[in-house]
């Protein structure tokens, strides 16, 4: 995959080898102050909020997120996307839960959430992979600016170190239904989470 | 059980044109029964050496009859053996019917074993 971490503007753009036409912009915020506002806009289907808003507390590191993005793209290719939009599908695929609404509640944005991952996938050829309103921003640069406008928080570099500070192991245990005996070895725990994500829906 | 002293006691064998015969003994009941094949005619197709009952009942033609005997001493012997086989079977079957012992199951099992082998492998053991 290609992995372009721009240190100066703290943005990450990734692209998988298998899906060279798709580019994904990933931004990480801390101290978000307008979570409830974002949520309301999402609920009212405001088309300028055409992004995935992900709760990073559920993440051990970027690999976990990438794994679910990859799975979403595979499902997209196989015509097996379950939720209405690709944005919500990215969130849904992070969750082991079969219920879309519940998954978004647990893995998406919550009213008082301070940390936030915002994700946007674009098809290089057709631009909007998830075609909606063409009056909306049409390049990752446009989206980057737009996201900064709608999220009131501190942009921090989306890297494993920053994510690990946000990670909430108890929440992971609860949301991934891992029971008490969760491995103390983070590598093994990560493998397990990835396994769950890869087998979601089966 | 004494065995005939074949060398000395020729009486049993004289006067029978060298036909096969059998002698049945039962020590418990002190029975001695001589089974002769008689004058015949004898055939290679026996009454007790045909197909099983269920095959006959299904009504298909018996394609597997023995070949007919040649007109030779050995051909004659083969026919006579068939008659002897029938007579022994009939005699012993009658005896079994008249004094059926309590051991029937066990013996039937033995019979099946001889006729159909010991393959009890169709059923699992557990």
């Amino acid at each position, binding site marked *: 995959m290609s992995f372009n971490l721009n240190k100066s503007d703290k943005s990450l753009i990734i692209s998988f080898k298998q899906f060279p036409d798709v580019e994904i912009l990933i931004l990480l915020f801390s101290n978000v102050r307008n979570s409830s506002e974002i949520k309301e806009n999402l609920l009212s289907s405001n088309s300028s909020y055409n992004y995935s808003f992900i709760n990073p507390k559920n993440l051990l590191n970027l690999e976990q997120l990438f794994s679910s993005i990859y799975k979403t793209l595979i499902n997209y290719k196989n015509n097996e996307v379950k939720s209405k939009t690709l944005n919500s599908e990215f969130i849904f695929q992070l969750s082991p839960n079969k219920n879309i609404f519940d998954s978004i509640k647990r893995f998406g944005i919550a009213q008082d959430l301070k940390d936030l991952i915002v994700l946007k996938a674009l098809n290089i050829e057709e631009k909007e992979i998830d075609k909606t309103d063409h009056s909306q921003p049409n390049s990752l640069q446009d989206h980057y600016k737009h996201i900064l406008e709608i999220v009131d928080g501190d942009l921090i570099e989306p890297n494993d170190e920053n994510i690990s500070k946000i990670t909430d192991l108890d929440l992971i245990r609860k949301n991934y239904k891992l029971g008490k005996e969760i491995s103390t070895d983070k590598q093994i725990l990560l493998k397990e989470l990835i396994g769950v994500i890869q087998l979601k829906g089966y | 059980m004494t065995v005939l002293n074949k060398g000395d006691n020729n009486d049993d064998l004289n006067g029978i044109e060298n036909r096969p015969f059998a002698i049945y003994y039962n020590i418990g009941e002190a029975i001695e029964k001589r089974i002769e094949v008689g004058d015949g005619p004898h055939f290679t197709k026996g009454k007790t*050496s*045909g*197909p*099983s009952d*269920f*095959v006959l009942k*299904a*009504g*298909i033609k018996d*394609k*597997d*009859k*023995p*070949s007919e005997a040649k007109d030779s001493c050995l051909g004659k012997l083969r026919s006579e053996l068939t008659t002897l086989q029938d007579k022994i079977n009939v005699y012993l079957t009658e005896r079994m019917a008249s004094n059926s012992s309590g051991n029937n199951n066990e013996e039937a099992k033995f019979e099946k074993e*001889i*006729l*159909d*082998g*010991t*393959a009890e492998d*169709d059923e*699992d053991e557990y």
Partner: protein
Amino acid sequence: MVVDLDQHLKPGKSSYVAIGLEGSANKLGVGLIRHHPGQLSLSNRAEVLANIRDTYITPPGEGFLPRDTARHHRNWVVRLIKQALDEARLGKDDIDVICFTKGPGMGAPLQSVVIAARTLSLLWDIPLVGVNHCIGHIEMGREITGAHNPVVLYVSGGNTQVIAYSKQKYRIFGETLDIAIGNCLDRFARTLEISNDPSPGYNIEQLAKKGKHFVELPYTVKGMDLSMSGILAYIDEIANTLFNKKNAKPLQNEEGKNKNKKNNLCFSLQECLFSMLVEITERAMAHVNSNEVLIVGGVGCNERLQEMMKIMVSDRNGSIFATDERFCIDNGIMIAHAGLLSYRMGDTTSLEDTVCTQQYRTDQVLVKWRDD
């Protein structure tokens, strides 16, 4: 190292002739074969001088009982031997060795045939060689097809094995854990009350050709082994609910729907069982790094099985070898051939050792005539 097969050629003779007697199941076979000295090869093939068979056929819905099968063999064995000798225009002086099936098989039929073998051996003063039935199939298959070192799928009424040669033994890599493929098909033929003439398996194959709709059945491959009794129970149950309900005898109603249903069941059973056979064969091929397959045994005549196997093998860029019904169905010639190989290595079976045995595993036999 090449095995010397000619240490025991009789003085004054330029070739070997063996007679083989087979009667381990419901087929009685007599065959006569000739080997010329030297290694068998494409330019030095065994000569089939006679290959005669008679099959004991039971009424529809019935299997063959050992006692009736033995009766069939007893009543035919001498006639068949005579016919074979006549056909080959040979007399007792031409024969080097009398070969018979020692096992595995049904006790009474085996015994009824070995009686003739022993009598002739003593009468003609010719040695006996007891042959493992499965080895007979394998060696004859190799000889007829020219397959060099194949993975062998041996499928018949009593056997389902995937075999490969290694270090002077034919080793069993996969096999059925319960009933044999032919047995499974025969028993289903009985459930459907299909005719046993010429064989239940053949008639199932004909019905299956007309089947179209696939009925899902359990699929029970276990490693390189497989299990079939569960599948039989499952499809028997379907057949019984379809056909054998109280009223009348719908089974004999060959009209319309029932006929189609029967066809479809036969079709599905074959598809399922044969897929498993092809899969375990492929597993063995991958395991021993081989790309040749030889199919032997009565079920090996089935065209659908051969077709499926062919697809699998050609996808692996391999070759498939199969024989026609003269050789894949039990026969005397294969016993003669395998017995003669043994004889040429100097092995004969003494009279006391001619007792037949129902259980006789393929991997018990030391394959002296191969050393590759």
